[in-house]
């Protein structure tokens, strides 16, 4: 357990936590920016291919991280189509991978939240003369707590994920090492109590983020 306290007090550890949060929150932000309008549009608009799209988005909830990692690895590798970006083994590649994983989650949950409200209040909103497009902000505001949960679900996926970022980030010390890849590394070194300790810190951080978001939401409601 001595290892654990030494690690906790090191600058390296602070960097790891900062990178974990930075990558996950960036990826979640991308997922919200894409998923919020997409999920709401799927709930409110009627267009050809809508059902198929909903099925696809829901199917992507089970997207295997390691497959996403591998696909992005091949795309971003120097001999791949996007190799000139030189994104492989950088935090940018990790944000990309986690955004791909989180976007379907946010989209599907926002769709569900807004679809229920649309059934209930859609008629009334349209009577008021709002177009479907203009109804979206009202619906999102009404379902804000469920939308918030969608964002947190996306964050939960990203902060806990290891398969994709290990492949595209490379677990480079001081550069692309996050909480989850550090836990995997310490496990492979046989430092099991240190790995478990880091695991509890990771869980604590997730709880803190959720609590902060819900506190902010509660204040806003007043």
């Amino acid at each position, binding site marked *: 357990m001595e290892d654990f306290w030494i690690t906790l007090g090191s600058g390296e550890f602070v*960097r790891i936590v*900062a*990178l974990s*949060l*930075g*990558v996950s*929150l*960036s990826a*979640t*932000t991308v997922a*919200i920016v894409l998923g919020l309008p997409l999920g709401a549009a799927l709930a409110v608009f009627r267009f050809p291919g809508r059902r198929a799209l909903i099925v696809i988005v829901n199917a992507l909830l089970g997207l295997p991280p390691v497959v996403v990692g591998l696909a992005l690895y091949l795309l971003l*590798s*120097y*001999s*791949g189509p996007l*190799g000139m970006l030189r994104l*492989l*083994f*950088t*935090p940018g590649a990790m*944000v990309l991978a986690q955004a791909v994983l989180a976007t379907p989650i946010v989209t599907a949950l926002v769709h569900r939240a807004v679809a229920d409200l649309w059934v209930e209040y859609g008629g009334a909103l349209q009577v008021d003369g709002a177009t479907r497009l203009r109804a979206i902000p009202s619906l*999102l*505001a009404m379902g*804000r707590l469920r*939308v*918030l949960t969608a*964002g947190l679900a996306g964050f939960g996926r990203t902060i806990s994920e290891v398969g994709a970022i290990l492949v595209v980030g*490379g*677990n*480079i*010390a*001081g*550069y*692309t090492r996050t909480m989850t890849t550090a836990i995997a*590394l310490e*496990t*492979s*070194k*046989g*430092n*099991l109590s240190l790995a478990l300790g880091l695991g509890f810190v990771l869980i604590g951080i997730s709880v803190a983020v959720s609590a902060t*978001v819900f506190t*902010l*939401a509660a204040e*806003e409601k007043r």
Partner: protein
Amino acid sequence: MTRILMALMAAALAMAGGGSRAQSPPQSIVLASTTSLQDSGLLDAILPKFTAETGITVRVIAQGTGQALATAARGDADIVLVHDPEAEDKFIAEGHGGERRQIAWNDFVIVGPAGDPAHVAGSHDVLAALRAIAAARAPFVSRGDKSGTDALEKRLWRAVGRQPSLAGGDDWYRDIGGGMGAALNAAAGMNAYTLSDRGTWLSFANKASLKIAIEGDPGLLNRYDVILLDAKKHPEARQEPARRLRDWLVSSTGQSAIGAYTKQGQTLFNPSAAAPK
């Protein structure tokens, strides 16, 4: 809602931006290396010295030797440091790199449970020991990941004249498809024998009842080579800083840094840049 989103975004950007600014010094190279050099702690111990001298940051991707060479062949690394002479020969023959230099050696050991169900402990003959393990059907963990260690293990079984496999009814042979540390964790968990490089073994913290069973066979020599990428085939590789790392590793400073790395009073890697190839 908007306020929360904006707060989240600002926090995320600040952290991502702050992180990459602080960690993007002018020069950095990607070193494709093996799990044994990372899990044993050697690279963490010596590379900061190189960075302090030269200002060049070395970003280590630790993979099995097979994967590390593949990473470099795809153009995703600037220099490789691996330990599978046969795979290295192929990499060099394909024109991906050259100017190979040996930097250090140690040896492999076969570790096994203290109970020693195959009665091989203390032996210096690895092939006889593998035969005995197979005959006793004692659990044996294989890396199965095309790493340097895995390649040696397969060569040893070839020399024994028998490649065990689950399909062939060898349920005692457990191919875990993982790194050195994962294989040691698995062996510790299932009281199995496994082949390990001595460096990872000495620094491994979860030995449970495992002990060294076989050591000292000349067939268990483990050499680490640094290879530069071919400038024509890989113009994307950062040649100049990579060459400086290679030169430093074989220099007297680098060599004594390697030799000075110990765990529990034992030297893990013997510097050998001066050794005949």
